[in-house]
């Protein structure tokens, strides 16, 4: 008995030694140009900007700010490659290029993981185990489609659209690049990709990989820059299709800007995912699922389970266990292999999270914040849970995009569905119950593009991802993901 008490107290004060990954593995260059027509070039106006490590605010590298003229050059290169090379390349050959890219990503996986964590602030465990392997898997999956498009269910001989302009966010930089490029190339399009302003580096390593794969020049062009670069791409008359992942506000602007053009559009926007927990759910798995649903990637996940809907009968116990579990999350150096929660990606995002959480307290919710010690430099936000949240609270309605969970309760399945659907968004939801018939009953009624039952935040190249309502339209992944890049 005494021994057991002793063991418990030792466990309670257990200290982890640091287990840092080496930053030198990144092999980063001090500065990067634009990747246009197969090679790196200086931006026409010679403007540069720095990209920071959000965990310590140190400069990692300098990258090029693409002007409208640079975007024009990239689109011209993509058009030329489309007309002279890529549209004449057989599906079987396109397939082999994509398989090559998948393999090269696997070969350089450790380097890419370190680059991703340095640039984004996410834990190395996540970039190593999730982002990079999934990016490779995505190329591997779509590689196999390139010579089988006749069998994809869109009629015989479906044609590509042409030049695709693709704008991606900072939360999963390389993975989002893979989600955009792999289906576009498999379908026979050429691409101009605009990485996020705060996380351009892994896409530039990918450019090196495309060179190593000997992908024909101009088939993929990568232009780094801020919102003006993205706007130039959206407005460019030589672009046939825009694919955007990001906030609903920007998505709305893009839809308006392309509304009077012939451009095709797919949007993957924000969310306010409901994670619905019934009293019969397996509680240990469910607690881990809730934690993973909101604190994975610092909550910088459009499909995050940011609203927990818990059945009243178990609400107290679930909240008690969640608060205890949040205390155990290891927050800090993203390069440490033991870290669970890394840095917030930027000062602007941190300010947004702080603003909304202040409203949470102001509107009367009860706040539980991890007592973890945050590093002095860098952008950090301690994992936080709000209880006693009502549907009208801003923290229950607006996407926080940070490590903040809002807890609401319900009594009946009908009420759970009504509350889950009480949002303009419709990206993802979770359902936790041991009763399969009830899970399917709820799933049928949820207005969401992805529903996870007894799990959360799972991604796979074969599984279509995307939203309904103001979470956007179009799917990425799976057979459905091809439709966004075919003229069908």
């Amino acid at each position, binding site marked *: 008995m005494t021994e057991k008490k002793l063991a418990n107290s030792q466990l309670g004060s257990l200290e982890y030694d640091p287990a840092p990954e080496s930053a030198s593995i990144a092999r980063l260059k001090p500065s990067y140009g634009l990747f246009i027509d197969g090679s790196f070039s200086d931006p026409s106006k010679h403007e540069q900007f720095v990209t920071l490590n959000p965990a310590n605010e140190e400069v990692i590298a300098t990258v090029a700010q693409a002007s409208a003229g640079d975007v024009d050059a990239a689109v011209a290169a993509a058009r030329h490659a489309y007309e002279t090379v890529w549209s004449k390349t057989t599906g079987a050959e396109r397939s082999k290029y994509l398989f090559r890219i998948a393999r090269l990503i696997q070969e350089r996986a450790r380097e890419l993981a370190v680059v991703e964590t340095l640039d984004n602030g996410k834990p190395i465990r996540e970039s190593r185990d999730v982002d990079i392997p999934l990016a490779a898997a995505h190329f591997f999956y779509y590689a196999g489609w390139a010579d089988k498009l006749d069998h994809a269910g869109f009629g015989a001989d479906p044609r590509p659209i042409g030049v695709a302009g693709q704008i991606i966010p900072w939360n999963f930089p390389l993975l989002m690049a893979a989600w955009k490029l792999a289906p576009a190339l498999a379908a026979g399009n050429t691409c101009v990709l605009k990485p996020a302003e705060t996380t351009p580096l892994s896409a530039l390593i990918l450019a090196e990989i495309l060179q190593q794969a000997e992908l024909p020049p101009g088939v993929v062009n990568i232009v780094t820059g801020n919102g003006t670069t993205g706007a130039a791409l959206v407005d460019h008359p030589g672009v046939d299709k825009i694919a955007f992942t990001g906030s609903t506000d920007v998505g*709305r602007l893009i839809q308006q800007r392309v*509304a009077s053009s012939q451009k095709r559009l797919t949007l993957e926007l924000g969310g306010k995912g409901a994670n619905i927990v019934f009293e019969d759910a397996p509680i240990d798995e469910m607690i881990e699922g809730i934690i993973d649903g909101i604190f994975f990637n610092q909550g910088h996940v459009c499909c995050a389970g940011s609203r927990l809907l818990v059945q009243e009968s178990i609400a107290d116990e679930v909240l008690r266990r969640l608060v205890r579990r949040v205390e155990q999350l290891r927050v800090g150096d993203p390069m440490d292999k033991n870290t669970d929660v890394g840095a917030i990606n930027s000062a602007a995002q941190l300010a947004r999270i702080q603003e909304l959480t202040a409203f949470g307290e102001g509107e009367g919710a009860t706040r539980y914040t991890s007592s973890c010690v945050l590093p002095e430099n860098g952008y950090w936000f301690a994992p936080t849970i709000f209880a006693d949240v009502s549907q009208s609270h801003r923290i229950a309605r607006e996407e926080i995009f940070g490590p903040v969970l809002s807890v609401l309760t319900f009594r009946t399945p009908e009420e759970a569905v009504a509350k889950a659907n009480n949002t303009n968004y419709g990206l993802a939801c979770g359902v936790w119950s041991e009763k399969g018939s009830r899970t399917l009953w709820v799933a049928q009624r949820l207005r969401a593009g992805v529903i996870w039952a007894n799990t959360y935040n799972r991604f796979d190249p074969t*599984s*279509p991802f*995307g939203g309904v309502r103001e979470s956007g*339209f179009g799917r990425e992944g799976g057979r459905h993901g091809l439709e966004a890049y075919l003229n069908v």
Partner: protein
Amino acid sequence: MSDSRLDVRKTYKLLINGAFPRSESGRSYEVTTASGEFLANVAQGSRKDLRDAVAAARAAQAKWWGSTAYNRGQVIYRLAEMAESRRAELAEHVALAEGLSAKKAQKSVSRAIDRMVWYAGWTDKIAQVFGGANPVAGPFFNFSLPTPSGVVAVIASQNSSLEGFVDEVLAPISAGNTVVVISSERRPTPSILLGEMTVTSDFPPGVLNIVSGITAELAPTLASHEDVDGIDLAGVVGDEANELSITAAASIKRVFRPNESDTATTTRRLRAFIETSTVWHTIGQ
């Protein structure tokens, strides 16, 4: 019955929630035949009528989608039966509205009825053709189900008074959506006749709502309506269509604009208002 008998003329009214109200505005407008002769005073719907229609469509949507695909197919097939039995009347109105010969109008009605049959057969195929199982790398059963966008607004084709109308409303309805349609401004009567037939075809109230009136006045209300999920802009072109597309973007609506490549057998319009809902379920003992 002598030829000199004074005929009993019909009042052409709106179809909202299975009932036939005059416009709440009390307005009507004069509709002529293609050759310019007086045809009817048709109810001129208002923005309020449209909002009522959207509310009816929203209320009906869950029930329509909640009925079985087999049942939805039977309801649409029943509409084809009704149209077949009243094809003479439909052909007469198509001829008057579009200025076609009797023979051409009859052919147009035949094609329209055949399209109804085509859509009747789609309801229980959509899940199989556009959905499927996804072989994810993990212990999950993962499947993608096509689901309706919800409430779909249709600005009906101005020219094709019946054939176009049938495609525009039945594509979303067969996929489980409910529809609010602004009928052809100058050629509304064939669509109004078809609307009357839906009420005797077991269409649940609110699944198809038809508002006749002035397109330019009415269309912005549907394009901006927050509870409309998608919009088919068949009946508008050029700047007007662009403006409506921009308005629709405010609530991220699905916008369908027909193009030349759309033929009788393409599924583009059918797919326009289908969402893909993907469910992951754990596999374990």
